[in-house]
């Protein structure tokens, strides 16, 4: 900010006198200065011209250069592969989950049930149900079908449930959890509480955790204490993985999927609700190749399930001799 005034820049009488005196001054810079400056200017101009030619020769490729397009296309392809690789490496658990769902439907639709497996009878449709009738305790509500987190948290049926329920559990581990989710919560419903209300409690994280045997064994109408439920949930999470993708894949005989799951770092000792490892399920199926792959991944041949069964015992009981030999050699290396 300044207070510049037009008169400030006006040449006063003294300035005019100086300019007149300076113009009359005959002194000049020497001719040598002029010559050297001109010579230097010519040198600089020549250097600029040479540099300009060189830079023109090194000019960047234009957009219509064919090579530029090839480079751009190659970059896009490389970026795509990198994205796929990153997705594959950083989201390993989503792949088996998706494939498990597909696999479940495939197994349910096409595969014959393995030994010891029973198919759950089809659920009566809404049209089959008389109007006004309350939903059955194990009925699958629309809400439970639409709730993916409920499916993820769906607890497996307790081991002490009846045979029908057990067989249903086995199938439901392949066909999806909603039935179990609704069923398990409905079993925990207090008298007078509808299955829908119990199902609504799934939104509560405590109510949504898998029900451990001791919690499920509580008398009807008596809710397990909160701490007990939490303990049960913790123990259930540590040992039982409902819908364990590895067990499901082993049970379906999908060696490729098992291989992919093992490469993704999944624990080979994951069990289903009955405490069965993938190796035990494969043994029950008599699948030698699957058992060999699981043993190579470190599966234990003496892992005990909830019923006290082990892969080696199951193989001796009903498996082919090759499988027995394989498991015995794994037990006594």
């Amino acid at each position, binding site marked *: 900010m*300044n207070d*510049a005034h037009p008169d*400030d*820049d006006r*040449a*006063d009488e*003294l*300035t005019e*006198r*100086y*300019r*007149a*005196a*300076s113009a*009359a*001054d*005959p*002194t*000049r*810079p*020497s001719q*040598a*200065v*002029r010559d*050297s*400056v*001109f010579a*230097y*200017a*010519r040198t*600089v*101009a020549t250097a*600029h*011209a040479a540099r*300009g030619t060189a830079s023109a020769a090194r000019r960047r490729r234009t957009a219509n250069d064919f090579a530029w397009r090839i480079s751009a296309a190659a970059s896009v392809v490389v970026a795509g592969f990198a994205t796929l690789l990153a997705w594959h490496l950083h989201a390993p658990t989503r792949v088996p989950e998706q494939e498990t769902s597909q696999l479940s439907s495939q197994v349910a639709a096409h595969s014959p049930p393995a030994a010891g497996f029973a198919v759950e009878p089809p659920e009566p449709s809404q049209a089959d149900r008389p109007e006004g009738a309350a939903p059955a305790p194990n009925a699958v509500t629309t809400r439970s079908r639409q709730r993916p987190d409920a499916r993820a948290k769906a607890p497996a049926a307790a081991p002490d449930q009846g045979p029908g329920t057990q067989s249903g559990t086995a199938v439901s581990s392949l066909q999806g959890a909603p039935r179990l989710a609704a069923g398990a919560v409905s079993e925990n419903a207090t008298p007078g509480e509808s299955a829908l209300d119990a199902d609504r409690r799934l939104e509560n994280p405590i109510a949504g955790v898998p029900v451990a045997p001791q919690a499920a064994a509580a008398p009807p109408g008596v809710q397990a204490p909160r701490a007990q439920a939490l303990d049960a949930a913790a123990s259930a999470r540590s040992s039982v993985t409902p819908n364990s993708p590895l067990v499901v894949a082993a049970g379906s005989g999908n060696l490729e999927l098992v291989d992919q799951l093992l490469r993704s770092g999944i624990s080979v000792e994951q069990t289903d609700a009955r405490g069965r490892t993938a190796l035990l399920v494969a043994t029950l199926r008599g699948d030698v190749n699957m058992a060999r792959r699981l043993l190579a991944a470190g599966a234990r041949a003496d892992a005990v399930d909830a019923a006290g069964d082990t892969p080696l015992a199951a193989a001796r009981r009903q498996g082919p001799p090759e499988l027995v030999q394989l498991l015995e050699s794994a037990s006594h290396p």
Partner: protein
Amino acid sequence: MLRFAGGEVRAFEELYRRHELRVWRYLQRNLGNRAISDELTQDVWFAVARAASGYRPSARFTTWLLTLAHNRLVDAFRAARHHERPAGAAGSDPLSLIEQLAGDSRAEPPERAQSQQHAAALLAAIGQLPPEQRQAFLLHAEGELTLEEVARVTNTNFETAKSRLRYARSKLRQLLQEYA
């Protein structure tokens, strides 16, 4: 400058001739030494030639040119470790100018001779100004810069430049009265 940047050497020569005396006189009246003034003038124009390729006309060329000259002047003062004009040169040039003008004036009519003596006295008085005041006066009178431009060249604010110029004029009037 832009024509020279395009490779036209003749444009540079034209530019040099137009501003040669302005730069040289600014340096010479500050330094009082022709040899050093020649050397610095050469440095200034070398710098102009080098900077031509990247020159952007954001201000008057004269302002930029005198900024280059002023910076070299400050460097020369700094190198000499004093801000006064070199004693020998300061005493010799104005006196020789006065003597030269006085000698020439002997053949001139009396009015013109008196005018030349007054001119010589003015140039001699400029040499006695403090450096900052002398620079401000010369940039304004010789370089034909405005006060804003003087402030920019000397890296000061407007008020300082204005004050220096006012003191310079006052001092010159006082010196010229003493001379008369």
